[in-house]
């Protein structure tokens, strides 16, 4: 067949429905290629980049905990205290800029939702503990970030 003849016969090679579906399939394939190529992270578009960031030997793993007190003794707070999943909770405690603010927001929200005054948290902090890798000594010190919640004005809970 010559080129024009081939082009003329192409539409008859599939049914109209198959051409339409093929258009959808092609668009889907292009979307997947674009997602991977662009590094997009815009749910539900995603390049599925979890655990992709390199962590060479010199980077020390850190573990964050949120501890609070109601006046007598410190205790651990977990995601369930805030109706958050473990990942949602840990994400807020990552030792990145803004940690103190995020922690204050957590505790303030907890106090705001707590109806019993004696259950409210008076003081809180995030402790960041380095976990040395096996066989690699570390001189990264542990630290803590204070995040004392703002005191609520009197009568604020009755609004």
């Amino acid at each position, binding site marked *: 067949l010559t080129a024009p003849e*081939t082009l003329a016969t192409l539409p008859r090679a599939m049914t109209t429905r*198959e051409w339409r579906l*093929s258009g959808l399939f092609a668009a889907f394939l292009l979307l997947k290629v674009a997602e991977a190529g662009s590094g997009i992270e815009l749910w539900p578009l995603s390049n599925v980049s979890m655990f*992709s960031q390199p962590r060479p030997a010199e980077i020390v793993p850190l573990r964050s905990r949120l501890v609070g007190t109601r006046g007598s003794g410190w205790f651990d707070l977990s995601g369930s205290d805030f109706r958050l999943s473990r990942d949602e909770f840990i994400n807020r405690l990552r030792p990145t800029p803004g940690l103190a603010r995020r922690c204050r927001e957590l505790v303030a*929200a907890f106090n705001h939702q707590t109806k019993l005054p004696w259950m409210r948290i008076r003081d809180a902090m995030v402790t960041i503990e380095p976990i040395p*890798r*096996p066989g690699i000594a570390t001189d990264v010190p542990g630290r803590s970030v204070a995040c004392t919640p703002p005191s609520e004005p009197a009568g604020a809970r009755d609004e």
Partner: protein
Amino acid sequence: VGNGGRIVAAWRGYWFRERSLVDLAVARIVLAVGLLYLNSGGRFLRTARVAPEHWVAIPLARALGLEQPSLEQIFWLARASRAAVVAVLVGAFTNLSLWIALLLQGLLETYLNCLGKVTHGTIPLLYALLFFAISPCGRRVSVDSIVRRFATRARGGTDARTPSTSRDAGWPFDLLFVELAAFYFQAGYAKLAAAGLHWADGYTLQYYLIEKGRPAGLWLAEHLWLCQTLSAAVLALELGFPIAILARRLRPLFLLGGLLFHLGTIGFMSVSFWPVWALYVLFVPWSRAAAILSHRARRAVTAPGAS
């Protein structure tokens, strides 16, 4: 025939091959059961119960003008979603039900992603709903097929059953496999783009294992050579997945590898992603499995000495 014709013929041969409509219908039922299980236990109620301070609208939610839902809204959305999925399960208004289930599930997942952590685990599930919504998955094993038969009989037509195979019964599985392959490939490609082959030096996996703090993960973190081996295996699996898009015979092998990978992330890191690997069940060739089982049963009955 020119190259164009050959390409179109190959394309058609790949996507539009005859496959069992029963397999497609059973896959629809499995998908619905999985969805009902996923959404059980008030999974979405948290979106209404968390303090407003924890609401972090993702771009899609902002674009749709979604605000934190009330408990009542979530309750009714979840109820409507369940009703749509049950309709999918029994095959009543199958395609319409699938579209409704897709929209509601998409909306509920959007809400769930506004709590400060975006999850990728249910993205392939949404695509599965989409692919089934445009497929003839309600033509067999469904209320729709029974109603159609009765309607045909009422009109005085012959009681012709729906054909058992269709050229539209295979591509939903192929599209779903493409989605899964892309999901894994993107994960592997993101690792390569961020760190190159150094990602597999063992230290990166060791870091994440220690950070997660699971006992099995901490044990694994003590063996750097194992971390290196497993990291390399993960990269090979993730980057190799697209091979099985064209090489269909390799799919069981890659799905087995994927299952082992997810079992590893569950055991060592408490990362489940079960809505992804639960989709593997959809690829079971049910009609072939049933034929093999009935053949074996018949042979056992007719075998000499069988009581």
